[in-house]
């Protein structure tokens, strides 16, 4: 893998921040705001797929932040469910506007993430992964057994966000949310905080020895991740207009993680590329649905074998290959 684009850069914001931010975000913005709507005009189904992919990408970006501190997080489904239910209940029972529910879902997820994360984040490696995995299942059971608005713990007739009526509206909203999320995580990763995360991923004891409050940064990363998961869940609930305990299962939590792997953990863009790639592939391969799991599995094995640093590491691999060939 050698030097990733991130690792090769200078620490912190030594060059004018706003210009670099523009360079980072402009291609993605053009793609999301101009190219996708143009190609998919008059195809509401595909626009809907893109909306899904944008919302899921937002959740994957959160998971990427926990990867940044060296934790494999399989709990994002739990926080998406939590955010979804927060929005569902606040909007149907209390009549709150979606535009208030969205940030509140993020706050609730972050608070729960802080409470759960504080003890759990002492665990590392496979132990942390396993506990977060069971957290997803626990959250499903919690809502199944406590929400009594509808049979099976579901909430129906969740209102759409005010002012958003067409599939294109919803797509543009999801694209904007994704851009804001991308900018936030990109900034986080490039700031001193991002470098603290990197140092913790590489050696927590050494990070402690130079005065880094490792426990606090860990919880912050996890809460940040959970907030993004909660907001993604809130958007989904509003888009689908319903939510059930089974809306997010362990599979979804695992998928969030796979999206990050596929795109590449060294790149902030990784989770976005991974999510869009897999969601689009899933749609194109709908006709062979029974083999989907098999295909996913084979794809993941291939990626881990030949592109252990994700799809986005391809350019640097090709460059190195090209240079060594001459």
């Amino acid at each position, binding site marked *: 893998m050698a030097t990733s684009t991130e690792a090769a850069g200078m620490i912190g914001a030594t060059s004018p921040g706003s210009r670099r931010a523009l360079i980072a975000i402009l291609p993605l913005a053009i793609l999301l705001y101009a190219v996708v709507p143009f190609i998919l005009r008059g195809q509401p189904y595909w626009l809907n797929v893109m909306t899904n992919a944008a919302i899921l990408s937002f959740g994957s970006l959160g998971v990427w932040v926990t990867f940044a501190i060296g934790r494999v997080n399989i709990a994002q489904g739990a926080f998406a469910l939590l955010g979804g239910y927060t929005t569902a209940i606040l909007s149907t029972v209390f009549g709150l506007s979606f535009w208030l529910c969205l940030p509140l879902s993020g706050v609730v997820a972050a608070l729960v993430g802080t409470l759960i994360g504080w003890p759990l984040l002492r665990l590392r490696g496979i132990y942390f992964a396993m506990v977060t995995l069971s957290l997803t299942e626990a959250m499903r059971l919690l809502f199944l057994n406590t929400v009594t608005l509808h049979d099976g713990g579901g909430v129906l007739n969740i209102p759409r966000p005010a002012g958003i009526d067409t599939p294109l509206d919803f797509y543009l909203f999801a694209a904007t949310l994704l851009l804001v999320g991308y900018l936030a995580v990109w900034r986080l990763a490039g700031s001193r905080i991002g*470098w603290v995360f990197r140092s913790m991923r590489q050696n927590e004891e050494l990070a402690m020895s130079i*005065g880094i409050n490792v426990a606090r940064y860990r919880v912050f990363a996890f809460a940040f991740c959970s907030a993004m998961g909660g907001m993604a869940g809130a958007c989904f609930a509003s888009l689908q207009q319903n939510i059930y305990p089974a809306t997010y299962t362990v599979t979804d939590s695992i998928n969030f993680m796979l999206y990050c792997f596929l795109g590449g953990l060294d790149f902030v863009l990784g989770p976005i590329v991974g999510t869009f790639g897999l969601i689009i592939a899933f749609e194109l391969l709908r006709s062979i649905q029974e083999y989907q799991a098999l295909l996913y599995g084979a794809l993941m094995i291939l990626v881990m074998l030949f592109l252990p640093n994700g799809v986005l590491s391809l350019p640097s691999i090709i460059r190195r290959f090209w240079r060594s060939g001459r």
Partner: protein
Amino acid sequence: MSFLKVEGLTKRFGGLVAVNGVSFDVNQGEILSVIGPNGAGKSTLFKLIGSFMTPSAGRVLLDGAVISGLSPHKVARTGVVRTFQETTVFKEMTALQNVVVAHQLGHSAGPLGAFFASPAARADDRRSQENAEEILGYLGLGHVRDELARNLPHGYLRTLGIAIAMAASPRILLLDEPFAGMNPEETNRAVDMVEGIRRRGITVLLVEHDMRAVMRISDRIVVISFGSKIAEGTPAEIRDNPTVIEAYLGQDDETIGH
């Protein structure tokens, strides 16, 4: 008043007493070494002083304030900074990034400022960068600053570990076996480096097995054996101390197999 004070430090693991009531003082500006045969409890003592382990009894004071029992990052913030045995560095960063990232104390911008790249945060980053370059310079790592740490030769990694610790602005630097596994030439250079650190006004407490290097470098030496302090004094005093000779000779007899 002494600078760093170790008072009756004890650590038990079940029935085993690894460190048993060890007390000594470290004066400001000196190089003090803790030596002892293998398994004497040096490493445990070292972890206790750096607060990477909580003592079963006793305490550690810096400038009269108790630091034992604080979490490691808080102890580092008081100015007691440790290094690690072997080659503990941030392997996927360049040498320079290793030292820059270690500048986490004394920033003027808070987390929000860092997130939004405020002018204060940018000034912090510039200062860390310059400071890191200076540290790499005087430790002789300037020419490998852009090399990834995992590609650096073994000998450089230990120096890089010290550079990382220096970035945390220590008042007292705890070195864990800084000469272990070095050949005489490397040891000479390492001894010079540690003396250079002391000349910068930093007190040095080191735990070491290599007797020769310790005799050359130390102002005072504390000897521990089976967890207890058996001697304390200048290198000359330690060299002639019958208890120390016995402790080390007993060890040698076993290892040589007489």
